[in-house]
């Protein structure tokens, strides 16, 4: 009998195996006629009429009770209702500048139902712009000459993710952890607004300040229609308060339709993400004469000789997904006997041969670690640099506190930021550049990944998009939440993405990351396809020693 875990795993595998072309959303949307569906037709049967009569009486009774009791819907429901009633939504987020005390606009988003969604974030010089005009999605950074275009799946999806989710989060907080704060009431844009103050904050929720409630305050303001119009976070300064973050929500504001049209100027290279994906898939489908055959001889690294039948089956699946799970189909995998697997390349070329060998030998491990920071980890860095022959720093109890991770081959000259701690180590004839990372209690690794696929970053370079499961997302949000920029100290943390023991990239953490992310790092399409296939396939079921016998024909 299968265990519940086996069934869960089987279903998750099924979800991962689901083909990219398996979605019917576009087909359905195309076929839907534009006029909205008609309202419920009047039921003709007598019984139905009687039922409606009874329902109406009950509704009348309920309405009378509501009028007598002065019943009110919850604060959460009122805020959410206000959000859903709005035809347009405009959100502006200001924060205290990282070096000065001036408030700076950090991001701005606009949404108009059935028209589109636009968001802008970053500095004036380098603004990341995302536009969904219901026809296409456009992603670009102002001043750069690359624009990423893909088909729109409806701007409401992005608006739900970016805007509605934020308001929903604050509305829940208003309902569960706020009290009325009359002394904070203010008038904004000529409208008197009621203030609510947060009375309980989850340390890992949206505030990560090392401050106690009382040293900082979170205020939400509701207008007369109970719509959330402003959220303010402030820190105590002397006898008063200093605003550190301010979010302004505007509803039903007239929006210029031009803001949903891309305005990136001339001489721009447009990367069509859908087209690129389709091309890669097309290339993979081309049939070519079969290439050489490898035979992998496998033995467990420890324990009795021979590989268990269940492990062999799992291994075959992992190999197959690694070689054929990306946009490209590389080889046919077949079990020869209890300890040998035959791998037949679909094409006869050296590049494929190298890719197959790399994919077979790859451990397929992924971890996310925080890079040691010169401002914060001074003592650890001193210890690590004292003896450069050692690979790691341990504390008195033997617990690993920090360790050196080699940079991905070919990227040795990257990551020269002064906050990053690096060393160059001689290894036989060549040099290896290593970066110091520190331990954390969360240990976010590739075991939490539920899916990885080819995507494109803001500059149009292939990137690896991934999604984590519930547990992984929770840990990832804690890891990133604990390492948000400390503006007063001028500290920004870097998240090291370590694949197969090599540091691939280290983006700065600007906000909390939940269950989705993107790995960039000067990849080719093939690199990303292989990485995605490896992550989707999972790691090898048992620790194996593998000998690859080279082509027999």
């Amino acid at each position, binding site marked *: *009998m299968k265990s*519940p875990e086996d069934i869960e795993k089987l279903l998750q595998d099924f*979800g991962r195996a689901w083909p990219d072309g398996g979605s019917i959303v576009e087909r359905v949307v195309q076929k839907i006629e534009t006029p909205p569906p008609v*309202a419920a*037709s009047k039921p003709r049967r007598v019984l139905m009429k009687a039922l409606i009569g009874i329902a109406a009486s009950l509704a009348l009774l309920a309405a009378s009770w509501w009028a007598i009791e002065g019943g009110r819907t919850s604060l959460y429901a009122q805020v959410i209702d206000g959000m859903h009633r709005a035809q347009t939504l405009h959100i502006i987020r200001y924060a205290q500048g990282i070096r000065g005390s001036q408030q700076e606009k950090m991001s701005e988003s606009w949404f108009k139902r059935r028209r589109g969604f636009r968001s802008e974030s970053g500095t004036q010089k380098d603004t990341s712009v995302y536009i969904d005009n219901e026809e296409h999605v456009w992603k670009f950074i102002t001043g750069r000459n690359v624009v990423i275009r893909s088909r729109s799946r409806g701007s*409401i999806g992005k608006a739900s993710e970016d805007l509605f989710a934020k308001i929903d989060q604050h509305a829940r907080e208003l309902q569960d952890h706020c009290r009325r704060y009359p002394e904070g009431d203010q008038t904004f844009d000529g409208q008197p607004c009621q203030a609510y103050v947060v009375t309980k904050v989850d340390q890992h929720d949206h505030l990560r300040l090392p401050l106690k409630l009382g040293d900082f305050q979170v205020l939400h303001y509701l207008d007369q229609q109970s719509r959330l119009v402003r959220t303010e976070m402030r820190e105590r300064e002397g006898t008063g308060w200093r605003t550190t973050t301010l979010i302004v929500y505007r509803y039903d504001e007239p929006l210029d339709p031009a803001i949903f049209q891309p305005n990136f100027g001339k001489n721009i290279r447009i990367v069509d993400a859908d087209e690129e994906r389709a091309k890669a898939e097309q290339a993979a489908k081309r049939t070519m004469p079969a290439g050489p055959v490898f035979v992998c001889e496998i033995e467990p690294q420890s324990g009795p000789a021979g590989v268990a039948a269940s492990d062999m089956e799992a291994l075959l699946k992992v190999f197959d997904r690694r070689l054929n799970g990306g946009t490209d189909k590389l080889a046919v995998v077949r079990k020869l006997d209890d300890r040998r697997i035959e791998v037949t390349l679909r094409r006869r070329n050296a590049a494929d041969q190298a890719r197959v060998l790399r994919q077979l030998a790859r451990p397929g491990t992924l971890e996310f670690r925080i890079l040691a920071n010169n401002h914060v980890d001074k003592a650890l860095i001193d210890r690590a640099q004292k003896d450069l022959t050692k690979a790691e720093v341990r504390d008195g109890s033997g617990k690993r506190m920090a360790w050196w991770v080699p940079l991905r081959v070919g990227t040795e000259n990257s990551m020269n930021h002064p906050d990053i701690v690096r060393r160059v180590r001689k290894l036989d004839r060549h040099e290896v550049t290593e970066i110091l990372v520190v331990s954390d209690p969360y240990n976010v690794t590739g075991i939490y990944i539920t899916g990885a696929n080819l995507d494109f970053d803001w500059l149009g370079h292939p990137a690896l998009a991934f999604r984590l499961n519930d547990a992984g997302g929770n840990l990832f949000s804690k890891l990133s939440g604990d390492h948000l920029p400390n503006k007063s100290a001028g500290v920004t943390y870097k998240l090291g993405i370590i694949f197969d023991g090599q540091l691939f990239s280290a983006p700065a953490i600007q906000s909390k990351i939940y269950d989705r992310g993107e790995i960039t790092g000067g990849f080719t399409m093939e690199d990303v396809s292989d990485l995605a296939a490896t992550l989707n396939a999972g790691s090898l079921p048992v620790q194996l020693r593998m000998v690859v016998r080279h082509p027999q024909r």
Partner: protein
Amino acid sequence: MPSTEELVRETQRGETSAFAELVRCYQRAAIITAHAVLEDFHLAQDAAQDAFLIAHQRLGQLRNAASFGTWLLRIARHRAVRLGRRRNAERTVAGYVDRPIAETCDWMEPYKEVVQQIARLPEHERIVMVMRYVDGRSVKEIADATGRPVGTVTKQLSRAIQRLRNWLAEVQT
């Protein structure tokens, strides 16, 4: 994330994008339901597509917007049965085989058994199972989408897993 009920209301107000969101949310459950009848992935996709189009046309007749998912799966099943009858008739008349199934649906082979069993689950359990394990959504996301409390979703999931376990064991013996 807007709930099913909200998406249905928005669709009734003419928001095509809201209906697209509903399709995204329930498409796999609908395809699996149809696949149990048709045993052909592409035909199951066609049946699911038809089911969504029918659901869109008749959305005004849906009295409880929150029960959109279960209603849709019933439509998908009926549609699959009709498509299956038509396919069988065509095959009988002309020896017609519409697609080389074995070639295009290799990936379904290892999961055929479990797909059959999922389709036996009551609709409400089928929806949460597919959302949780096949779509990879969190329990919280499912609770938000279906408008059910997190505790209810968790219970439905564990019940469904138990049922699948028993049924799969029966098949193996």
